[in-house]
């Protein structure tokens, strides 16, 4: 059936191929992270993700105490095209302890 598909892992992109149809974690530029199901990807790391949760992290410095306040905002998107130039890393979902 899969005559064209070579299942050997030869290059880093092949590792991403192993995650197709699996949930993955993607770290993007601008302190963003995505978790979603990988439907498709290409050599530019453009990706199509399904059932995505996006987490945006921002750090504010309090004017008086100078402590760092870390805020995160989340949202869900059913079906998303991600442009590859914003992608930093791709990984199976991290296990949070």
């Amino acid at each position, binding site marked *: 059936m899969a005559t064209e*598909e070579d299942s050997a892992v030869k290059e880093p992109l092949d590792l991403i191929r192993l995650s197709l149809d699996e949930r993955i974690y993607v770290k993007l530029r601008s302190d963003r992270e995505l978790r979603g199901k990988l439907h*498709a990807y290409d050599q530019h790391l453009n990706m199509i993700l399904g059932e995505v949760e996006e987490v945006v992290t921002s750090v504010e410095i309090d004017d008086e105490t100078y402590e760092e306040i870390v805020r995160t905002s989340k949202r869900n998107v059913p079906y*998303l*095209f991600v*442009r590859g130039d914003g992608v930093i890393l791709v990984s199976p979902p991290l296990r949070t302890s």
Partner: protein
Amino acid sequence: MGKRGQRASERTLVCVIQALVGLELLVELRNDLSVRGVLDDCDNASNVIIKDATVEDVEGVQRQLPLVFLRGSNIRFVHIPDNVDVMQLVEDRRLMLDKAATAYMGGKGAPAPKPVPGAGTA
């Protein structure tokens, strides 16, 4: 990895956006603006033209622009409507382009067969 046809767009995921021409979608830019409107055109660099656009900034301020050209490098996300069969649209577009190409050749030849479903990239 399978080779996806002859077209450069078919070797990357840009063909997915090109298949969505005519649909209303939301494009998020790297500068946190979002543009909602009907996708009029998309090229191989994913530069897009959006018609009847509503541009919204982080504060929620909206502007109506009848026609927007957006450089592809400024795109962060494209929200794809989830009520469409994307695979079918991509295949439809591929067939249409193949038919147009063969018509140009005086009708000789036929559309290339549908590529074997494979993983990822060319």
